[in-house]
């Protein structure tokens, strides 16, 4: 009743219709992306759907304050709202994570390669279908790492776009991203070995015939 007196019939005027049409056309095509991001945060289909719905309700409410630019701006805006909706839902504080040295994380990537090489699986990415293992490894990450690696390496956001989406400094994006990658690489190496893929590695370096003669 009160609503009715406050909101005269003119509120469904042509301009509101127009605005809603714009909103639908700009925001709804990103539904699969929002869903995928929501799922990466909740790791649960039904919670993800709730978050997606809440995201679109908020987006519609605040559409007037969103200045439409490029398509990817709208996607970024939606994922920002999605992340905030998730934070509200789980009362998660954006707790800060110990910042690791970016250069040490780069060295860790070379170590991961050395470990894979000595286990005989350094061609694991070419040889194995790691898709399910990768999705599983991402799901196991701490949420602070997961959201960064999903935005960067799955959705293809730049460091800057991630910093804006998550509201954290660039340096934090980098250190979380590199650390997330290290965790993923470690998980995938364990997976490749557990799955027995090292068995098909080429035979270890042959001893020289001279050595064998000496042995005999």
């Amino acid at each position: 009743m009160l609503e009715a007196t406050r909101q005269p019939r003119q509120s469904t005027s042509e301009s509101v219709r127009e605005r809603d049409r714009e909103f639908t056309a700009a925001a709804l095509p990103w539904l699969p992306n929002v869903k995928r991001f929501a799922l990466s945060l909740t790791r649960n289909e039904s919670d993800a759907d709730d978050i997606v719905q809440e995201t679109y309700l908020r987006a519609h409410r605040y559409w007037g304050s969103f200045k439409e630019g490029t398509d990817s701006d709208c996607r970024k805006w939606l994922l920002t709202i999605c992340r905030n909706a998730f934070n509200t839902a789980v009362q998660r504080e954006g707790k800060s994570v110990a910042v690791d040295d970016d250069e040490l994380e780069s060295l860790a990537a070379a170590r991961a390669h050395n470990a894979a090489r000595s286990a005989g699986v350094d061609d694991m990415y070419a040889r194995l279908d790691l898709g399910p293992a990768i999705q599983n490894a991402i799901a196991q990450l701490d949420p602070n790492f997961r959201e960064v690696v999903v935005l960067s390496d799955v959705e293809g956001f730049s460091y800057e776009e991630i910093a804006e989406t998550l509201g954290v400094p660039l340096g934090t994006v980098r250190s979380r991203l590199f650390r997330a990658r290290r965790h993923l690489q470690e998980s995938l190496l364990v997976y490749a070995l557990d799955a027995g893929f090292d068995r098909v590695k080429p035979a270890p370096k042959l001893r020289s015939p001279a050595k064998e003669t000496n042995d005999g």
Partner: protein
Amino acid sequence: MDSRRSECEAIVRRLWPFVDDKLPDSDREQVTRHLEQCADCLSHFDFARAFLDAVHAARPADEHDEALHARVLAALTDQGMTI
């Protein structure tokens, strides 16, 4: 040998920013030059790129979730959306 080794280490320390194309121009050129002549470092960078390609390729397909689409539209209409 030692200077070679420390040069390699200095290069590898910039692996992720290089792979993400975030190095300043001068650094990027230095890393590029090194990789042209150091197969071992190059193999680390290639492995990192293969890892990133695999992560990107593993992304779940955009699924057109009709049920969710309908549910969101219904909720928006409840909220007063005019379409």
